[in-house]
């Protein structure tokens, strides 16, 4: 029995994406918004919208009580969290469960287990999924120092509650260990309210490969292939691709490990198992228990609508297809369009959109919160849209992305800038075209990538 009314507990492009999927399935939608977001696209698109607090996310999009009452007052049966905000907050999921709302995602228990990195690693170790050598649990300074010396520098200090690059430090020499350790702890405390950190071998410039998983409540788990998200800057993804250009045997081993990881923890709904790949070996880094920003590249090559599958699974339906039915066609690339100024350390550059022209044509998709005369809010993430292209092969996809970026115009009044020229430059790099990509790519070529004429 499909859910009939869903509250979308998010904003921006992903809220729009989810509302669109619901509309296509004849599911009613309720949007939530902050005081600053009253004129956002997702508010206009949804059947109903409830203001849940002030401009700061803490009081609105992270305000569990208000969001839950909005859902209950509007008669919603389910909550789709999107990505970010409350999507991986097990406390929120537990609250949903306790008031009888279906959370579109895995159970609170699974989120809690996978959200805590040291617990997750213990579980993965038990499931036989390869891990980066390091501490299994949170460590204290002295203990950490000894371990670092035994696995060899460079090592990485990471917040166990973190994500998005915060509370993270690379240590190359034993002398620097202490100060880096303290800084990471401090940052983690500030960002996540929990100062626990752990330690692992730092794999320098690996490839970031992740496997998309779908699992229903009846024990069926399958993968939808991998995504290559190696083009990052400070652990923030910029370009994502599917499939990754890697040996098939290696990819098969990763799929198998990802499914093992998911089944071992009793995972349900859509999730992503992230690995780093160095040469022929891969290590588990984390599992994202939610929809990913870059899910459209998987959709582009498999033809599966991931949000729809999420809603179907959450409604208690079993998967409509099996692993054999999943096929990969062509190559897809996603570029994140951010309202930022790449030349000024990528600082956010929001503003009002005065003119918008979107690329169109075969194989082009643009998921966005933008509309002409709409405002880009300074209070939230600077990502305003995602340009996704699909081509016959990687070279074709790159060419299509180039031409689509050429056509994209986001013109604004005042300070509004986008990273479009930066992305355009990226598509032109020989190293990118030749698939010589890893997580250090952007840092290595930053000067060249910023050498566009404005």
């Amino acid at each position, binding site marked *: 029995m499909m859910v009939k009314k869903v509250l979308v507990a998010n904003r921006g492009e992903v809220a729009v994406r989810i509302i669109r999927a619901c509309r296509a399935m004849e599911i009613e939608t309720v949007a939530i918004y902050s005081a600053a977001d009253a004129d956002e696209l997702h508010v206009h698109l949804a059947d109903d919208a409830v203001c849940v607090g002030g401009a700061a996310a803490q009081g609105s999009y992270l305000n569990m009580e208000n969001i839950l009452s909005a859902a209950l007052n509007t008669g919603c049966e389910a909550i789709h969290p999107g990505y970010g905000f409350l999507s991986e907050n097990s406390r929120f999921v537990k609250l949903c469960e306790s008031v009888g709302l279906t959370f579109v995602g895995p159970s609170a228990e699974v989120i809690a287990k996978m959200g805590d990195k040291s617990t997750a690693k213990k579980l993965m170790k038990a499931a036989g999924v390869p891990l980066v050598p390091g501490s299994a649990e949170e460590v204290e300074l002295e203990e950490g120092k000894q371990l670092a010396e035994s696995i060899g520098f460079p090592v990485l200090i990471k917040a166990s509650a973190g994500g998005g690059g915060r509370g993270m430090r690379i240590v190359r020499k034993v002398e620097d260990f202490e100060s880096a350790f303290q800084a990471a702890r401090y940052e983690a405390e500030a960002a996540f309210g929990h100062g626990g950190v752990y330690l692992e071998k730092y794999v320098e410039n690996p490839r970031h490969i992740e496997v998309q998983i779908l699992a229903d409540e009846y024990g069926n788990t399958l993968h939808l292939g991998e995504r290559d998200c190696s083009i990052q800057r400070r652990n923030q993804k910029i370009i994502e691709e599917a499939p990754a250009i890697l040996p098939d045997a290696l990819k098969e081993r990763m799929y198998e490990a990802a499914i093992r990881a998911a089944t071992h923890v009793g995972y349900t709904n859509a999730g992503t198992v992230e690995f780093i790949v160095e040469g022929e070996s891969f290590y588990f880094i984390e599992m994202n228990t939610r929809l990913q920003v870059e899910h459209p590249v998987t959709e582009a090559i498999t033809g599966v609508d991931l949000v729809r599958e999420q809603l179907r699974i959450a409604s208690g339906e079993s998967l409509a297809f099996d692993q054999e039915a999943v096929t990969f066609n062509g190559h897809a690339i996603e570029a994140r369009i951010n309202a930022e100024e790449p030349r000024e350390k990528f600082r956010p550059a929001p503003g009002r959109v*005065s*003119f918008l*022209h979107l690329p169109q044509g075969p194989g082009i998709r643009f998921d966005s919160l933008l509309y002409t005369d709409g405002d880009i809010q300074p209070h939230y993430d600077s990502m305003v849209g995602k340009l996704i292209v699909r081509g016959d092969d990687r070279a074709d996809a790159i060419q299509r992305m*180039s031409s689509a970026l*050429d*056509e994209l*115009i986001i*013109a604004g009044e005042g300070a509004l800038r986008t990273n479009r*020229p930066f992305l*355009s*430059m990226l598509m*032109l790099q*020989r190293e990118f075209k030749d698939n010589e990509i890893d997580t250090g790519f952007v840092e290595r070529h930053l000067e060249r990538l910023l050498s*566009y*004429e404005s």
Partner: protein
Amino acid sequence: MRAEEGQKRRLMKQAFEARRRFRARHRTYRGETSPLKHVGVPEGLYEKCKRCGERFVKDDILENKMVCPSCDSHFRLRAIDRLNMTVDEGTFIEKGLGYISLNPLFQEDYEQKLAENRERTGADEAFIYGYGEIKGIPCVLGVLDSHFMMGSMGSVVGEKVVKSVEYALVRRLPLVLFIASGGARMQEGIYSLMQMAKTAGAIQKLNQQDLLYISILTHPTTGGVSASFASLGDIILAEPEALIGFAGPRVIKQTIKQELPEGFQSAEFLLEKGMLDKIVHRHAMKDTLYRLLYLHEKGARL
């Protein structure tokens, strides 16, 4: 509001322009760069109207009987096209084959020129004649082709014209001649001039036998041809704006030292002066010829 809209259009234009420049600077060729190949339109694909200057695809013009769709100007026709648009399909039987011009006065380059013309037009000489039917009425048809040495009359053309007359006499058929000629062929000198008397004499025989002779003067009909058999038709038709005369206008002007009247030597001018019976549009030519032939058939009734 309007001004603002214009501004946005400009914005888009400027942005796209900038990106074209960006792409041009950073263009990466997949293989060797090659200079732009000059692509020309193949010869003969287009026909340009000399009067109005419009260009047309040749096949379309041919479909329109080589008449300019824009200004109705009549282009010069090859003999084969003239026959195709005049006689009933499959009825034409060419006669008088195998006559080849010689070089009686040993003119330099004449033989070479003839060879070139034969090569270019695929015809032996400037005149073709034979048996044909126009909407079922049998007749003898002859066509002078201005593409072959300007349709000039040398010994062979003269002889073939006489042969066509004699064929009409033997078969007792009406004779229809399409004229397009620059006059007597200079390279054969006096032999060419002799053809004027010879062809005129042949037409005289046709007259004595009461056989119909229709001559159609097309652009251009000049010199020794206009001064002989071309002007001796029982019925003389012309195509619109055809140049018909003996000497060219420039020669006359220089000789008599007077301004010539406007349209002098045009078909329309000559019609006004009573030198022609009718000007017939090319599209109406076949119907007109049919009607004339029909009216002159034995026992014909209106």
